[in-house]
């Protein structure tokens, strides 16, 4: 596996949704590739730093995705370049992490400023629907933010399971086998209702009662 492929798989790995074969391939690559390991570690450092920001702000899903994508692309470019010219090796990791953290903090700060200013984007999601507008999807990024968790989960876990597993694991391996299901339980419980939810149309007065049973 090349660095570019590993980059693409990381998104799915973050969501814990890689199949076992791909997961193994990614782990195998990470075990052998310093650059990708450092990249994940650096990303984790940055996101941890962002997660420790005191403010709880509303960040649009689009901004979050765009920022993460940008980080990934930047890291990816670094990864592909390092195969020819290992420029990043000359840059210190803390410096890179600090720079990325500054960019993210700036983005969050700008967004916070934007959130404070009046406009349809600042309406509560429900009220936007009632007024006939379509607010961009937003979600909270508290101090213990999703991206940080995501980064932690993305860290490679290289190594075979021990012969004697820890007591928690040995006592209920199914809990950990089903961890991805437990993580996404709400989505899975209402899977069909969510899939049939419309994004384009504005919900009318009675449309707010979308079908939510998943019978």
């Amino acid at each position, binding site marked *: 596996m090349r660095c570019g492929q590993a980059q693409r798989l990381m998104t799915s790995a973050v969501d814990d949704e890689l199949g076992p074969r791909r997961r193994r391939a990614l782990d195998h690559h990470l075990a052998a590739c310093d650059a990708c390991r450092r990249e994940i570690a650096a990303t984790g450092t940055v996101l941890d730093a962002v997660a420790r920001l005191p403010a709880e702000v509303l960040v649009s899903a689009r901004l979050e995705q765009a920022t993460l994508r940008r980080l990934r692309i930047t890291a990816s470019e670094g990864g592909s370049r390092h195969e020819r010219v290992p420029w990043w090796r000359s840059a210190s990791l803390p410096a890179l992490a600090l720079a990325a953290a500054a960019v993210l903090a700036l983005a969050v700060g700008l967004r916070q400023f934007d959130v404070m200013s009046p406009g349809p984007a600042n309406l509560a999601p429900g009220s936007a629907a009632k007024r006939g507008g379509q607010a961009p999807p937003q979600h909270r990024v508290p101090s213990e933010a999703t991206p940080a968790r995501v980064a932690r989960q993305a860290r490679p876990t290289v190594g075979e399971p021990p012969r004697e597993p820890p007591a928690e694991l040995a006592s209920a391996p199914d*809990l950990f086998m089903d961890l991805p299901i437990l993580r996404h*339980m709400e989505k899975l419980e209402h899977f069909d209702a*969510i899939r049939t939810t419309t994004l384009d149309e504005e919900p009318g007065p009675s449309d707010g009662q979308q079908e939510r049973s998943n019978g």
Partner: protein
Amino acid sequence: MRRRAALLLLLLPLVATPAGAQGWRAWDQLSPEEQRRAWDNFQRYQQLPEQRQRMIERRYQQFQTLPPQEQKRLRQNYEAYRGLDPGARREFTEKYRRWKSDRH
């Protein structure tokens, strides 16, 4: 340490009951691939914030109380969710947020 004790306490009934009687498999009964998956997930679980771990424990308890057909349905939905291509998954995530905001 307290977290570990709490989790062990939670899992105590499971430890006290033979795995076969619960319809679950013991660690030794898992295939190497399953052991690896459980081990990987266990390591990720340990890295989650405590709040998130508690939520998963609650969901685990909830999951155990579901009838088998409901558990099966969730597993099937998870497979469908996993099978979504990146574009479809993004759309699903948007729909999920929309659905959730409509719900509250």
